[in-house]
């Protein structure tokens, strides 16, 4: 029997637009995942630390203020430094399509843009996170 997928939804930087982050957090919960939402104004360090402390499988980061190029890669980088790069990172928000290749290059696995449905995100997580009960590890 597999355990529940654990997800951290996070808002890096100073952006206060968290409608999307909250809607996604709730949709993932309704889809049977365990979700922690950080609240707004988190630094990349705080997000990486929370991800490790909460032993999540995947982190979703959202920014609508245009700071993604600077902040998203830092989250991945810090996770790597702390040897927690088995935790996947995906992102979303107001992100120009031109920025996606460099974000993926930096280790952000997927980027969801305006109009993406919560179903798309649930499907993505289920396909990419493989969880097993600790007993079977």
């Amino acid at each position: 029997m597999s355990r529940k997928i654990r997800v951290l939804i996070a808002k890096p930087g100073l952006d206060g637009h968290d409608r999307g982050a909250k809607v996604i957090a709730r949709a993932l919960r309704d889809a049977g995942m365990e979700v922690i939402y950080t609240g707004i104004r988190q630094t990349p360090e705080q997000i990486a630390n929370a991800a490790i402390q909460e032993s999540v499988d995947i982190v979703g980061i959202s920014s609508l203020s245009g700071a993604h190029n600077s902040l998203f890669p830092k989250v991945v980088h810090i996770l790597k430094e702390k040897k927690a790069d088995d935790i996947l990172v995906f992102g979303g928000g107001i992100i120009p399509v031109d920025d996606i290749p460099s974000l993926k290059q930096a280790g952000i696995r997927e980027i969801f843009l305006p109009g993406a449905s919560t179903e798309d995100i649930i499907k993505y997580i289920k396909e990419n996170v493989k969880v097993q009960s600790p007993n079977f590890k």
Partner: protein
Amino acid sequence: MSKNIHDELAHWEKTTLQKTLSKSPEREPSFKTTSHIELKRLYTPLDLAESDYCGELGFPGEFPFARGVQPTMYRGRFWTMRQYAGFATAEETNKRYKFLLEQGQTGLSVAFDLPTQIGYDSNHPLADGEVGKVGVAIDSLKDMEILFDGIPLDKVSTSMTINSTAAILLAMYIAVAEKQGVKSEILQGTIQNDILKEYAARGTYIFPPLESMRIVTDLFAFCKEHVQRWNTISISGYHMREAGCTAVQEVAFTIADGIAYVEAAIRAGLDVDSFASRLAFFFCCHNTFIEEVAKFRAARRLWSKIMKERFKAKKDDSCMLRFHTQTAGCSLTAQQPDNNVVRVAFQALAAVLGGTQSLHTNSRDEAYALPTEDSVRIALRTQQIIAYETGVADMIDPLGGSYAVETLTNEIEKKAIDYIEKIEAMGGAIKAIESGYIQGEIGESAYQYQKEIERKKRIVVGLNQFQIEEGPLKETLRIQPEVEQYQKEKLAKVKKERDNQRVKETLAALKKAAQGSENIVPPILGAVKAYATLGEISDILREVFGEYRER
């Protein structure tokens, strides 16, 4: 007469209507607005049979202002066309303002970047990646001088979307005006200064609620003496609506916040008629056209009654709900973005039919980025077409008297009152925000809305129906990363050239005022004039007032 209509309506339902319904049922079993108001198929004089025209609607420019706040409305002067703008540096934004004024815009509206809104200088570690992104970066009076260079502050009115740091930015504006030889007494404009909705939705708070409310009321008191024509607050439903609440919730939460501000000002010793006429409001205009028109009318009537009956305001001006409108950013789609031009046009028309005093129309490309100059021009032209071509501005409140509009106006007002009473029972808006009630209500509505879209209960053209294969938008505005470096260098230069002794003294004076009960705006003005930076001034206040942390 109404008995007759009653019989005739029953007859129509039994015969003509029934015949059609039996052959072809309606699209849905029931029709509801976004605020869950069940809509009738047809509204008739019967729905308004109880209404008292003079008491509930009255005449424009008179209590209860349901039909508009000015006696001539747009026959006298169109609403102010005010596009919210700001990005990168003061230099670049100044150019955009001059472009907008050349294109016939009639007022300025400043968008600040997030570090400016949250009290960090551009070189602060938390400003990393955010400098100049969602608005213009302002670190010191120097930037503000550049922002308004060549723009006569005695001629334009300027709205500033600034809350936690409103006192600092207003002080900078006053200082720039002074350098232009313009006295503060004649300055016209607005500071948003609505901290309560920052905790509820928008997120640019710095200090705890009580300390924040002190800054708000200090600003009321200061402006009453020195900037009498300034709107000291713009009590905003916009951001709560954008965060997902319904039209009724928008009215209710905004007015509940308004009540909290009036109470705080009265507690601070101000007479209600000395400040109430400078309170302004800010609403969103979404797609559900009739509900939106009714919403504005209901808000106006409700506020006027509260001011008169509850707060015993004597002056008519104190009871007037004057408001700015912005079209709904959250209604814009990244898919088939040109369709957004149409959405914005309908929303803008509803705002005008609802009697707005000023209007911002969103641009088609804002689901991607800040708008390009071309997109902003179309948005502004949309307002100009409504003003000059449609004729809706040539009579006052043209939808007034519509059975449907009046009924919805009544229902929205009633439902908003229910909410406000619930909030009052919790101890008022501040308590309702501290307990997370308002945030919870907003979040619940946002989630339901998203689910409706995903289940296709709500159709968004181009998003969940009528889709096409398309590539991403080609041309969008990009903020160059060099902006951050440029801004940091400018800041370092200001710090090097200013009189640091004077900075120290003025900041010490501010600290003393903040620790006591003295109005903090004059010492902020002193510090700003000495080129103390926004971050330095905010740090002093953080030290004295502490910082708010989200629950």
